[in-house]
């Protein structure tokens, strides 16, 4: 609500759209439009879109602009293969749906192609199909070449889920596989969604803000310190011990009573802060375990057993009071092949299996995907296509930690 960098990032998620010009050119040339296996034989249009990227970009910009010198931007990337389009905020503010970003870009691109290459009325439908894909026969732009980070509203699990519907593959690629930034971007999107979902309100607002700060934004260097302590030889169990040690040292938890065996029950006067510490430990545990194996598949196991172990160590509830652990159980089923599903890179906060924890699991999954050295058949690059790569050109999305910290410092008038 207060940090301008976070507001900007949320706005950019709506405004920024990726265009695969090379894809449009290929689709037009071959008639392969509307998704896998669909080819319209006999339909073909040879246009040099990649070579003409600069003029196409100008035309798209002109079509999208609301007023001269507004915040519309169209950037040509990879020698014209891709465009990064920023739809002006005014255009989004004039409507109620975030889909304006993708729809107006797709429409602007169609107009630009038709105008520049003087496409006749009989071929205009092919241009539409190559840009929009099979839509409107499908809900989304199936096989299209324009993509937003956000899925269409019909694909959201419930109210306020839009920002949670970003697969971790995109997050890892946008942040160029920097695990800290991947976790930060994911945490910002997830916790911002909590406000939209009606979770981060009243008694629960502080819980989510603390979670964002400690898990997502590395407050007091907590995540980094715990990782560092266990970087060379640490196990997940060692990370649990480091987390508890730090929570005791910082006065977050304290002994309550000793049981006959000598076991000490711990208590806290600030459960939201304990949850924040535990969620920072969970991320550190993911980074140590998945980092040591350079593999993303360990995430659900970390979710379950970090929480089991931290609960047994303290007798206090684990992250999100049991919801992360439950999420881990489901995610383990759906990410370890026999029940189908997919690898962690396809998961998002909107996923049927991972939506239950309110913002505390997906940042860890994003970090794990960033740390993977290539152990999966479907790599993040394959899953994300060009979207993640193109959106990594937006500095605020690529390096959220830097921008959010700078904005926070500015609000506080310096550190």
């Amino acid at each position, binding site marked *: 609500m207060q940090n301008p960098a976070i507001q900007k990032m949320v706005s950019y998620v709506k405004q920024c759209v990726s265009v695969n010009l090379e894809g449009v050119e290929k689709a037009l040339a071959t008639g392969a439009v509307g998704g896998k296996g669909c080819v319209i034989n006999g339909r073909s249009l040879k246009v040099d879109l990649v070579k003409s990227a600069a003029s196409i970009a100008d035309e798209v910009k002109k079509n999208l602009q609301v007023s001269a010198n507004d915040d519309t931007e169209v950037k040509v990337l990879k020698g014209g293969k891709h465009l990064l389009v920023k739809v002006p905020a005014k255009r989004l503010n004039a409507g109620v749906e975030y889909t304006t970003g993708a729809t107006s870009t797709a429409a602007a691109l169609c107009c630009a192609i038709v105008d520049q290459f003087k496409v006749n009325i009989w071929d205009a439908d092919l241009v539409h199909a190559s840009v929009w894909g099979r839509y409107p026969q499908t809900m989304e732009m199936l096989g299209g070449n324009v993509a937003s980070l956000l899925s269409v509203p019909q694909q959201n699990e419930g109210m306020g889920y839009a920002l949670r519907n970003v697969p971790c593959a995109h997050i890892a690629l946008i942040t*160029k*596989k*920097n*695990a*800290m930034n991947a976790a930060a971007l994911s945490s910002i999107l997830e916790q911002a969604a909590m406000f939209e979902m009606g979770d981060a309100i009243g*008694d*629960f607002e*502080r*819980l989510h803000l603390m979670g964002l700060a400690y898990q997502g934004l590395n407050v007091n260097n907590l995540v*980094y310190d715990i*990782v*560092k302590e266990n*970087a*060379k*030889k640490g*196990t997940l*169990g*060692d990370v649990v*011990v480091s987390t*508890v*040690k730090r929570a*005791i*040292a910082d006065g977050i938890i304290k002994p*309550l009573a000793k*049981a006959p*065996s*000598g*076991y*000490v029950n711990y208590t*806290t006067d*600030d*459960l*939201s802060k304990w*949850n924040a510490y535990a969620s920072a430990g969970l991320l550190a545990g993911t980074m*140590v*375990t998945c*980092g*040591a*194996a*350079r*593999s993303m*598949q*360990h995430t*659900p*196991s970390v979710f*379950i*057993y970090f929480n*089991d*172990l931290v609960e*047994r*160590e303290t*007798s206090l*509830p684990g992250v999100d*009071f049991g919801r992360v652990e439950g999420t881990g159980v489901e995610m*383990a089923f759906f990410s370890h092949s026999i029940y189908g599903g997919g690898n962690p890179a396809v998961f998002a906060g909107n996923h049927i299996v991972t939506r239950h924890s309110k913002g505390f699991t997906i940042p860890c999954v994003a*970090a794990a995907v960033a*740390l993977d*050295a*290539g*152990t999966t058949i479907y790599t993040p690059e394959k899953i994300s296509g060009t979207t993640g790569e193109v959106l990594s050109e937006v500095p605020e999305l690529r390096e959220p930690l830097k921008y959010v910290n700078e904005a926070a410092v500015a609000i506080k008038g310096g550190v």
Partner: protein
Amino acid sequence: MATYKPQFYPGKSKVAANRKKYMDPSYKLEKLRTVSDDDIVRLMGHRVPGEAYKSVHPPLEEMGEPACPIRELVEPTPGAKAGDRIRYIQMTDSVYFTPLTPYMRAWTGHTRYRGVDIGVLSGRVPLEARERDLEKVAKELVETEIFDPARCGIRGATVHGHSLRLDENGMMFDALRRFQFDKKTGEVVYVKDQIGVPLDKPISVGKPIKEDELRKRTSEYRVEDVAFRTDKEVVSFIERLHMLRTEAGFDPNRVKGI
């Protein structure tokens, strides 16, 4: 702070003490038998002993890694460095006083081994890791006191048997007959690998642990010996956690000092 020592598990019973002991990585697991490195490889069946490790990606040094402070900090395991495939060992543990219950396998595995992916299912517990890392872990899992040749099964597929009665030799049921009790030597021998593929020569995993000894070592609560309900401290711990999770879900700000 100075007084904090990792406590691992509550409880005053012998079972709780065993749980604590096995979960504590500073406790050295007692070695009860020797199985050669090559036999461990044969039992898992992922490669032939002596065969080079297959890789899923090039060695990290060759491929280079993206700029990331966490990658710079976190040391990859030897298997990850080399780009090994991720492989598994899967255990089935009988409900009759097995050394490790399924959950204990996960808790113990995560406190003792680095970079492992453990999952607990109703009748089996797979542990996955990079191949050369896995082989080291597997050796300790099979050679030490947390394994009993008769009541723990190394089973990659068709794992059933954990909840069935033991046979006349005290062996857990195995539909694929991977292991047999050798009456002459009193040892348990594997004639098939964990998937059920016949081995060229049988592999002995030693003599079953005696019943009274198993009851001493087990981490399983069971009515015939230490019933769960008799360990009041553990029961109250579970009740406390249940209460705290529920209260916190209602309003985290009201959970103070309890």
